């Protein structure tokens, strides 16, 4: 995982609550505009719902909800990144930026000063001229989106 992430040459940048993030392009297949969602009652909080992407049913996760950030104001301009991990997921972010080349020199392990929430989904940081890019760890991200619910909600069967 680690070596894969570092060695991969290209990253997609996206923005959540004014923080720029980056995802390895190898881990995603496409970026789509907001989809019609089916809300699933009792689902983990990080789950926006189910989307029908050309006949394939995917679970849409919300980056803001995973990070326990306030809901975004203008949902219409958000974008959903389709992740290829596992059975496939949608990851909704505020906006997407560009595809950049990975600069191994600028990569650093997750700094301790980062907030707990961020740390739990972070693979490392990339220092850019404009600022710091947080490189996301998709597996951690998905794991957090599941467990976030398991601890914070007790709503089980009934």
């Amino acid at each position: 995982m680690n070596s894969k992430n570092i060695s991969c040459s290209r990253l997609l940048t996206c923005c959540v609550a004014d923080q720029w993030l980056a995802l390895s392009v190898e881990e995603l297949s496409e970026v789509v505009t907001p989809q019609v969602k089916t809300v699933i009652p009792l689902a983990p909080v990080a789950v926006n719902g189910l989307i029908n992407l050309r006949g394939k049913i995917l679970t849409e996760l919300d980056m803001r909800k995973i990070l326990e950030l306030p809901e975004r104001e203008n949902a219409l301009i958000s974008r959903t990144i389709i992740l290829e991990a596992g059975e496939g997921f949608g990851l909704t972010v505020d906006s997407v930026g560009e595809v950049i080349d990975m600069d191994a020199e600028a990569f650093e392990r997750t700094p301790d000063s980062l907030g707990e929430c961020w740390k739990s989904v972070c693979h490392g940081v990339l220092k850019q001229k404009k600022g710091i890019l947080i490189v996301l760890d998709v597996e951690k991200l998905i794991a957090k989106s599941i467990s976030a619910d398991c601890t914070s909600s007790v709503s089980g069967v009934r």
Partner: protein
Amino acid sequence: MDEELLAEFLTESNENMASIEEQLLDLESDPANSDRLDGIFRVVHTVKGSCGFLGLSQLEKVAHAGENLLGKIRSTKFAVDSEMVSLLLESTDAIKEIIAGIEEHGREPGLDHSSICERLAVAEGRIDGTPADDEGEVIEEPVSLDWLQGIDEAYVAILRDNFPSPEKVLAAGFGTLRGLPGMQPAIALKVLGIAKSVSLDNQKKELVANPEVLNEVVESGLIEAPKEQVLAPVEEKKAEASISESSVKNQVQPARKAKSEGSIRVDVALLDELMNQVGELVLSRNRLLRLVEQQGGTELVRTSRNISQITSRLQEKLLHTRMQPISNLWGTVPRLLRDITKSLGKRIRVEMEGQETELDRTILAALKDPMTHIIRNSCDHGIESPDVRLRSGKQEEGAIKLKARQESGFIVIDVSDDGGGIDADNIRNKAVSMGVITADQGDLMSDKAALQLIFHAGLSTVEKVSNLSGRGVGMDVVQSAIEGVGGTVEIESRPGQGTTLNIRIPLTLAIIPALIVESATQHFAIPQMMVQELIAIDRESDAWEEIAGKPFYRLRGRLLPIIALSEVLEQQGQDESSSVVVVNIGARQFGISVGVILGAEEIVVKPLGRHFNHLEIYGGCSILGDGRVVPILDCLGLTKGLRQEKDVEAVVANSEAALSSISEESQYILVFAVGEQWYAIPMALVERIEEVEAAAMEKSGRREVLQYRGDVVRVIRLASVLEVESLPEQELEPCLIISDQGSRLCIQVDKIIDIVKQKLEIHLENSEPYFIGTAVVDGRSTEVIDIFEVIKKVAPNWFSSKGDRRQRVQKILYVEDAVFFRNMVIPLLDGLGCEVIAARNGIEAKKILERESPDILLTDLEMPEMDGFALTQWVRTQPRFEKMPIVALSSLDESQYREPPSLFDACVKKLDRGVLLKSLTQLLGRKREDDSVLNAEVILQENNENGGRDE
């Protein structure tokens, strides 16, 4: 010959034989590989074994010879040489040749394979001649080296030390010989050649001297096989001893026919993928239909309908390819039983019914373990040991019955044994002692509900732990496995008589019809196989009850626990739910109240992602025709909480027992119209509904008759009896054929409306002569006609003509709490010419019995104060009534009785007049007349006697 079995055998053999070549070749390169050898042996052995089954004697001979040789190789750890492999390859070719012949002609081709058999036998003998080194002395002594004529002494010396006999030389092979110190390749080749011819000569001599070796050859009838044939290939090979196997193969491989295309084996994964694709097709079809509906022209509609039909057919056919008969699952049962019975010292046989019933293979696979477990359980705990069985008057040999059948989208499997059964009280006590339920709950629980507790995790009833079952895991695992494939399992048991497990599973899981419902503006799918019925409800209705803080709805006398979907899902902004979906979980019903029922759609079940793993209320998701994703509700998970709440269970169980007498009054009634008014009669009285041509009703005097199935049947026009305005005569008149004890009446009505299950309100005072009650059908108050009053009026002789009056009037004590049934049955008993004493319950009956001695006691079972069981049990203790027959008359099936039906002399279902009359006449010691003859007379008699009296 069994065609299917043969086809199976051919496919399988072809597959196996295809790999055997390769395996043989591998073996050649690595003769010490015993696994490989085992594999080859198995294949040939299987072929031989199947041959015996299928009566393929020719093939069997070849395979047998091959098997013998392989067996010998295996047991003596003989290192095969290339010649041996060639021979084996030749034998497999012979096998293939015969199989190809069978494929082509359906029978064995008349080929002569005696030579190969002979050679195989020879080779077997050859191995015997060259035993492993440690036991070689016996033969070593007499062997001289004379056979090595023409070979230089130096080389003979080398051979003397290592390979003194031709057999040993052959066994060692060219490579080893060559590798001997001081040996030259050319000499080695020469030695090998001599060794071969000498050894063959020896063996032939041996064959003649020792025919046993050639048993197989003798059988084939050709012991005089031409020596040239035997020798020829060997000679050739001698020259090619070091030539690669491939050329050997080419040499021995005959041209073979292409395989028949009758059946092929397809990778299951491919089928699954196909199924997925068809699933997608169904979804796209749904979407297409939806779009066309909105904006399609005629042409488009037609085409899309075509596509829709083809899709459905495709889906159906594809489902079929995944189906396998349940015999695949049950095939292992006899063997399982054999093993179990041996270790338990019991004798158990298995009976199977409906083996051809087909199931989706994934479901079949999922059922494998539960099935094994259930059968083990039955053997271990169910069926008693032979001595116990003999003592309780049963056959020494126990029986396990497996029954499978298809029933409206479900496969129902019954596994029953005739063992000791399970005592509900035991289960109850155990459950209480283990804290699964409280003592109060246990008391409230019906026996049936208590029995289901054995599926509760950790509740194993057998104190003694055996190595087969009874480890406290078991039935709960069985249940969860069955529920895992969307099925349900229930247990029924009668102490001393046996236990039955009733398993219901859906036919397939891939594409299912579902009900789409809405709750708080969200859509959900409920699999239709779970749905019993839909009811529209009124929140204000007094059918709602709250018991222990839980809502219940009184549905036809039963308490239905209700779950509000929006509450379970914790949805915001609940809307008023207007409908209840009644779902079946096993024999229990639950109501799920939802907002709106939107309709039904075929859906393809898709799995939900891992974020929903912890939610038991969803069974998956699907895409609807409008493209929207919809979660599929899992009714088992949805009701799980409710089902596990013991107070709810107790309430339901209790109410079911208490209310069963009320539900008895719920009847199937036939609703019809005469003129404008609707009327109804109990369906049980109606033999058939016919449309009769008006012309077929012949006037005979002032009455009308109809020729019906060889009978002359009296026609009664209900309109004239009831004195209401009838509709004008139609070309086809709907008629009800009423049948009583083999004689019929035809009742003409104007229109058949419906058949409904309804509770009947019974008039207590008989103000109107022809009506016994009213029912509300479709919001209309409908009069229930007392058809016997009508008949009495119009054709009074219809009943009495058959009652042969005896000198002494026999008395029947009839105990029944429901007025409705009393009104129905008493005229019938009157018709028997008996005096009827009626009682409303057991207490009254007891009082009557103090002063009367009826000839027969006819009793309902569920009654207030003292029920039929209690009454019967009391009567049975009274010496005075020792000989009095007791007949149970209930709407329950015998199997539903709380007490063994053997308590009664006869058990009759309510309104089954024929059976009731038959039982009564028999028990009253009367003979039945031949009805058909009598009926004709009756009608004729009536014609003569009351010609003009009935109007």
